């Protein structure tokens, strides 16, 4: 496991070097402006959280192809491989930070991605009236969307959030089912 972990880290570094970069402050401010707009448009915090998740999902279903093509990772052998790939390769490639995998459940169907450094929340301080807001919820959506494209249905939620007073960010990922290949209707005609 230790060696494969190193290999993931190396792949992450390589992918990171290949990606074009964007100014971190610009990125954080753009995201912040978007979240603020949602907060103003929806008022209800639960709706904002859901909206961020949906946006993330729509990003994830696209991002997966960019990820597969540019990182050079193929199909994962098992969920442990998937978890390491998300934490060490994907987070490094797209956000420039490395996450850790932790807290496996007994069946090996759920794990946490622990993020010590979250570039989305630079400068952010949640005011008391928005203490229920999952500011970085877009990340959950991205993971969910990307994994769905490789036939894994997962549930994904923020378990701990630095903005809400926790000491680190933890995204809980739970595998619900592995989707079967499903043919389009045109293949069932006349059967």
């Amino acid at each position, binding site marked *: 496991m230790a060696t494969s972990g190193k290999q993931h880290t190396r792949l992450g570094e390589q992918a990171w070097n290949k990606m074009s970069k964007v100014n971190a*402050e610009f990125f*954080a*401010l753009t995201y*912040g*402006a978007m*979240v*603020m707009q949602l907060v103003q448009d929806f008022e209800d915090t639960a709706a904002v959280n859901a909206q961020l998740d949906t946006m993330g999902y729509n990003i994830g279903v696209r991002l997966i192809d960019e990820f597969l093509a540019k990182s050079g990772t193929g199909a994962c052998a098992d969920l442990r491989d998937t978890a390491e790939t998300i934490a060490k390769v994907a987070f490094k490639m797209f956000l420039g930070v490395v996450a850790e995998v932790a807290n496996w459940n007994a069946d090996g169907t759920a794990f946490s991605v622990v993020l010590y450094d979250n570039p989305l929340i*630079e*400068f*952010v*301080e*949640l*005011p008391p009236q*928005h203490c229920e807001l999952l500011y970085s919820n877009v990340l959950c959506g991205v993971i969910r969307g990307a994994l769905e494209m490789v036939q894994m249905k997962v549930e994904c939620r923020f378990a701990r959030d630095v903005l809400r007073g926790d000491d680190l960010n933890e995204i809980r990922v739970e595998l619900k089912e592995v989707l079967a290949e499903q043919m389009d209707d045109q293949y069932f005609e006349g059967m």
Partner: protein
Amino acid sequence: MSIVFMIVGRNEPLYEAEFGLKSANPAQRAAERENSHLSQFIIHSSLDLVERKQWFAAYPYLRVVDKFNEQIVSAYLTAAGVRLMLLHDGRSEEGIGSFFKDVHELYVKHMLNPFYRFDTPIISPEFDERVRALAVKWL
């Protein structure tokens, strides 16, 4: 004698802090608080002087803009027209300059918080804490 610091936006004060209410004697402390209304008044009245001085003083640290009895008002003007004002009894100009510069930086960082809207009062406890730390460091 305490020091009063104020950030004044385009229309209203955004932030206010008072450093060094040191007297142990409660009666004296009450008197100091009484004074703080006077302090605010002094600062407000010197805003006009800031406006006048901004055209010929070194920018952005305008140094001393007003004097009232023993008390001195120093000012710092940001590009967006936000004024940092300090009422004191003759601290070193360099120290005040450094204090203003650091607070300005802090203010700029605070502006980057998406939940803060420009020219609205600053209510963040963290900001307050940091300003107070800077006051201890420089004043």
